[in-house]
């Protein structure tokens, strides 16, 4: 369909006015971030998978621009360019088009997103509960009555890794692979066996580090083969990673029981009110206990706001595919003849503003509603 009819447009506008009214009543400033954005922020932040779906073009001066593929990053940019002190509390909401090349699921190439972003909220748990509450209130104001809520918490996962004894670089590698279940399993397995039986084209070079200092080995190799230094990495970076690889060989393997605890945690799919009992079975340390308490505190905040949070489903792996989230995540879905359709989602993303150039850390939590999908499931 090339566009919406008068009646369709009016119906969508009515629905969306009800949504933004909820956000504005809660004290969020209704802003209009730019549609055309510098491409770098999206592309550097998201990687090639989003880049492939983003409308990128070049301006006459040669700068890469894009049509915004979502509104969170544009709202962050708005905040960084308008706020005198980025780490002072700010609450924004918006309604506007986002653009993506359709993927294999034939998603639309332009769609109206409504959402809110809350920067530097004073009470983290309360803000997270409040954002979920507002998302649900907005959906209900639009007429939605039946839906399911899925919760995730990357804080629990990070805490579990912190409590598991292993070299920091192994931990970082596991965190990095959280988004990719297959790679995660492979990496975890390589840590429990820690026998790099598989020789690679650089194994022989690493062998030499057992006898000689890494700097010498690297210098010799570069000189003897007369290799030009291209590719933007310094020899120190190369040497440091070689040294890590060499060190990996002599690390004690990760305890199998600990690895099983991580895998066991990632298998958790549980009603929120059963979670405490299930987590009790995870052999956990100080960080994990803190994170558990925080989860319970947030749950209590949700109850306080009148949400029936006990019935929400907790899924440990939820949050995959959403790379910029750092803690609490949620998704609201509606059952249709074709299965469950996600109409809203959100969570905490505390690193994004720093990544975008904020001189100070800014905590952030937000949500977005796919208004056309919502309209479709309400029809």
């Amino acid at each position, binding site marked *: 369909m090339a566009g919406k009819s008068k009646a369709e447009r009016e119906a969508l506008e009515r629905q969306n006015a009800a949504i933004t009214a909820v956000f504005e009543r809660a004290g969020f400033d209704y802003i209009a971030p730019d549609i055309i954005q510098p491409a770098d922020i999206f592309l550097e932040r998201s990687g090639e998978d989003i880049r492939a779906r983003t409308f990128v073009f070049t301006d006459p001066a040669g700068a890469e621009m894009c049509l915004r593929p979502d509104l969170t990053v544009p709202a962050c940019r708005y905040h960084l360019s308008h706020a005198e002190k980025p780490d002072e509390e700010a609450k924004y909401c918006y309604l506007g088009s986002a653009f993506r090349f359709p993927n294999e699921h034939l998603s639309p190439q332009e769609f109206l997103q409504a959402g809110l972003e809350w920067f530097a909220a004073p009470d983290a748990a309360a803000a997270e509960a409040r954002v979920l509450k507002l998302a649900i209130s907005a959906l209900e104001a639009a007429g939605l009555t039946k839906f399911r809520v899925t919760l995730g918490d990357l804080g629990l996962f990070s805490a579990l890794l912190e409590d598991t004894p292993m070299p920091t670089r192994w931990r970082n590698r596991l965190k990095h692979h959280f988004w990719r279940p297959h790679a995660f399993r492979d990496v975890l397995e390589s840590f429990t066996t820690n026998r790099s039986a598989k020789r690679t084209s650089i*194994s022989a070079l690493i062998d030499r580090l057992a006898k000689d200092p890494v700097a010498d080995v690297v210098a010799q190799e570069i000189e003897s083969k007369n290799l030009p230094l291209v590719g933007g990495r310094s020899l120190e970076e190369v040497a440091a990673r070689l040294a890590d690889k060499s060190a990996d060989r002599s690390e004690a393997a990760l305890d199998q029981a600990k690895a099983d605890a991580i895998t066991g945690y990632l298998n958790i799919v549980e009603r929120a009110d059963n979670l405490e009992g299930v987590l009790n079975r995870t052999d956990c340390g100080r960080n994990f206990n803190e994170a558990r308490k925080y989860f319970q505190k947030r749950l209590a905040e949700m109850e306080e706001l009148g949400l029936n949070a006990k019935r929400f489903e907790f899924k440990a792996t939820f949050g995959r595919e959403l790379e910029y989230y750092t803690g609490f995540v949620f998704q609201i879905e509606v059952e249709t003849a074709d299965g469950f359709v996600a109409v809203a989602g959100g969570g905490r993303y505390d690193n994004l503003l720093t990544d975008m150039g904020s001189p100070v850390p800014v905590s952030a939590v937000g949500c977005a509603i796919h208004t056309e999908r919502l309209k479709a499931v309400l029809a």
Partner: protein
Amino acid sequence: MKVLTLAIPSKGRLMQQASAVLETAGLSIARAGAERGYRGQLKGIDGIEVAFLSAAEIAQNLREGKLDFGITGADLLWEKSAAEENLVSVLAPLNFGFANVVVAVPECWLDVASMADLDEVSESFYARHGRRLRVATKYLNLTRRFFAEKGVTGYRIVESLGATEGAPAAGTAEVIVDITTTGSTLAANHLKVLDDGVILRSTAVLAASPAGLNDPRAALLQNSLKKPE
């Protein structure tokens, strides 16, 4: 009988080898008519017209169903159409145009042997330099698919339409995805192929769009051009 179109590369070694393969199979091309040079008639199978196009255009036009058959490189074919889309089918691999599409990094990256290494480096590169690793290539789709399959996400593609192997030295990219036959161009530019960095082992292929595939002449072409066992 509807006339079908078989496209073959319009110039260079690929054209010569494609013509030779057809010739050997007893299917010579009679060039004739006003469009002399760019159109011809296939002798040996009735109702097949020959068009001369660039290898890339052949892959694109097969994808769009504008051609029935074509001889082109597997690299170009799979760059234009993902196999799971089922938009094109390979009727027969041919005995020429051997080359690999590979991921190559600077040889001075002594710590990088595999795609997993590249993934790690891409993370630390971003943390240290504040920008993504750049991959120079003309194979945008093959690269995206392969990197996704290997779980490498922290990179950006820089489209390159020639002399891709020079990109790292020129400072316009750190990594390349390119086609190579002997590897000598890569070596001359001090680039090395990753252990698991072969994306595609390519040859010239006879391919068909669905319209071509469903015609009995597909089998005739296929049988004529199939490599002898």
